[in-house]
């Protein structure tokens, strides 16, 4: 490869990695890169805010299993990426974030649009580089992608001063690191210990999280459940690992988990945690979580094992061989399994809420029942997010894109853009709320510009619903700054962005709305009005165990 500018090399490196889309926003310190991408083999998607770029790359990665790439200029451009980077870190999403930096001689001088993004992002990246020498670029680009996707995936920041982008050097692409770099197999001792716990247990529960899907271990996981017949609960991010209609799937656990799920976990004598991390939203008060259970904890990340809950058997490394080795029948658990399945029937959700207004759980259940296996749902954060998790019915984990760890409102729409571009074979529906959608509403312009066929199901209660619910229940109904009754007309707003839209006001309108969402081409917004008082049930109150959940509606 002849001598070239650093910026051109970065483009060639992205091409060599097989990148087909990058998401970004230009500015001063990244201008050499933007000059170099003209004619590149990948397509640049111009978002309308850098946070949209980070979330779009995030959604791209989650839906496809490939590395998402976002780009921003220095200073405010980079700080606008931060929420999306933090989200990728919390949820272990493979991303490479390329940022322009002021010229090297200006670093540390408080130059125009200078921000120490390397320092700012240290706690929220898997790794980061500040490129000091143009000759380091081949190594840096190769390493950035390798690190982002290896082991437990995560975001990698590559901060490139403008003079490094402009510098010419004899740069050669390093060979692409093989993508299928598997973590090491767990130790035989740890598996034998787990096997003994399985043989000794009477009331086991599998508690599985997003780590199973990220480890490409869904088939091994399903095989393990099929052979052992252990009742299973999922975290928010684990939904779909076992299909929602599998008889052994009890539902989501945790703060908004179903009764049968939480009670089974509380009563179990062996908790098999797979690709999950005892997050506080799943466990409630940790000291009261599964109080009588021994624990088997499997995770690719050894530092998660024993971090929050002592494990009698810790299995660190590749979970696939562990799942295969532990797949043997457990005839002694039959009575427990039957009790769990009876509990699932006894506590089955009732979708016959009184009234004529739209009942969101029923709407989402119908959407899930009618959507095919090629439908991806992205969510924002709040009540609608929990209703989706409880009622949609996922068949694959990569079909549910939700901001689990960081809980970032504004995630849904840009993530849907990334998902739709990375999975053109799939239908993508963004379920959002009236609070969340406004956080990245500008990305409707991106939808329209590229005619990306994302459907938006906007659930509007004219309030910050989850905060309102907590103020109602735990702050003596003293409502503080949750009113959004002056929302814009979302149908007119969407139409102003060039996106067709329609209202859904009554329950009887739902089937037709779902028809349109599932079958119309191009982007589309359905604006669903619901009553402000609607709450998410069950709910585990703060400082309570998961056994102390509350239900205050017709399901009580």
């Amino acid at each position, binding site marked *: 490869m002849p001598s070239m500018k650093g910026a051109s090399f970065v483009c060639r490196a992205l091409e060599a990695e097989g990148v087909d889309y990058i998401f970004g926003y230009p500015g001063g310190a990244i201008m050499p890169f933007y000059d170099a991408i003209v004619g590149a083999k990948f397509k640049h998607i111009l978002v309308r805010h850098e946070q949209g770029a980070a979330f779009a790359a995030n959604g791209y990665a989650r839906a496809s299993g490939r590395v998402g790439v976002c780009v921003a200029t220095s200073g405010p451009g980079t700080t606008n990426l931060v929420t999306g980077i933090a989200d990728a870190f919390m949820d272990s999403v493979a991303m490479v974030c390329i940022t322009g930096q002021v010229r090297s001689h200006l670093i540390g001088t408080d130059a125009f649009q200078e921000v120490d993004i390397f320092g700012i992002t240290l706690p929220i990246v898997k790794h980061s580089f500040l490129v000091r020498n143009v000759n380091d670029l081949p190594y840096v680009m190769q390493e950035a992608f390798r690190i982002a996707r290896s082991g437990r995936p995560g975001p990698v920041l590559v901060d490139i001063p403008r003079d490094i982008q402009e510098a010419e050097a004899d740069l050669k692409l390093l060979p692409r690191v093989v993508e299928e770099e598997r973590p090491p197999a767990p130790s035989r001792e740890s598996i034998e210990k787990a096997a003994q716990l399985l043989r000794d247990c009477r009331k086991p529960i599998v508690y599985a999280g997003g780590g199973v899907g990220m480890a490409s271990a869904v088939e091994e996981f399903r095989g393990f459940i099929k052979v052992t017949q252990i009742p299973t609960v999922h975290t928010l991010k684990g939904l779909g690992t076992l299909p929602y209609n599998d008889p052994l799937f009890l539902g989501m656990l945790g703060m908004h988990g179903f009764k049968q799920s939480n009670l089974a976990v509380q009563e179990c004598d062996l908790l098999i945690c797979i690709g999950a991390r005892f997050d506080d939203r799943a466990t409630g008060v940790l000291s009261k979580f599964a109080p009588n259970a021994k624990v088997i904890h499997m995770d690719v990340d*050894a*530092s998660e094992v024993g971090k929050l809950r002592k494990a009698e058997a810790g299995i660190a490394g590749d979970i696939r061989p562990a799942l295969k080795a532990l797949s043997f029948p457990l005839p002694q658990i039959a009575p427990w399994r039957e009790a769990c399945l009876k509990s699932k029937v006894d506590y089955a959700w009732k979708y016959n809420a009184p009234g004529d207004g739209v009942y969101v759980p029923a709407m989402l259940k119908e959407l899930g029942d009618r959507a095919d296996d090629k439908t991806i749902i992205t969510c924002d954060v709040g009540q609608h997010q929990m209703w989706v998790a409880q009622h949609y019915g996922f068949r694959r984990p990569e079909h549910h894109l939700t901001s689990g760890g960081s809980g970032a409102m504004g995630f849904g729409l840009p993530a849907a853009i990334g998902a739709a571009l990375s999975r053109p074979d799939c239908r993508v529906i963004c379920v959002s709320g009236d609070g969340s959608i406004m956080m990245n509403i500008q990305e409707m312009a991106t939808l329209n510009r590229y005619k990306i066929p994302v459907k938006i199901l906007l659930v509007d209660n004219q309030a910050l619903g989850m905060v309102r619910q907590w103020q109602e229940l735990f702050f003596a109904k003293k409502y503080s700054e949750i009113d959004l009754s002056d929302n814009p007309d979302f149908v007119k707003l969407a139409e102003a962005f060039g996106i067709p839209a329609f209202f859904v006001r009554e329950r009887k309108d739902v089937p037709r709305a779902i028809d349109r969402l599932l079958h119309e081409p191009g982007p589309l917004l359905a604006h669903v009005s619901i009553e402000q008082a609607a709450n998410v049930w069950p709910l585990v109150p703060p400082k309570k165990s998961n056994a102390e959940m509350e239900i205050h509606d017709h399901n009580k």
Partner: protein
Amino acid sequence: MSFTLHVRLKKAEGSLVRLLGQIGRRGYDVLGVRAELSADQKTFDVVVEFEPFMPVPPAAQEARPAEVLPRLVEKLVEVEKVELRGPSSPASKSAPAAPKSKAAAGKPGSEMQFLGE
């Protein structure tokens, strides 16, 4: 109760800051640090004295387990070796097999030579 963490890490942009940040952010109070650059200027030998934070009531009075820290630190890309030394908490007791060969957390008889040892 304090412990010491002995870390060898590559000299790279921000590697020392990243190491100390990982320790403090994860619930361990840094009590002291010594760092020495190797003769070839490619690695640091770092000794960090720390103690796990004790949560304030009403949180449960359970400090973060010290033996988890080497596993958190060894995840950092620049870390080549980690060893935990402490009066009552050899990391090998309950630590699962680490996925990276660079880990030497708490293994007795380690051949690592660290600054000041």
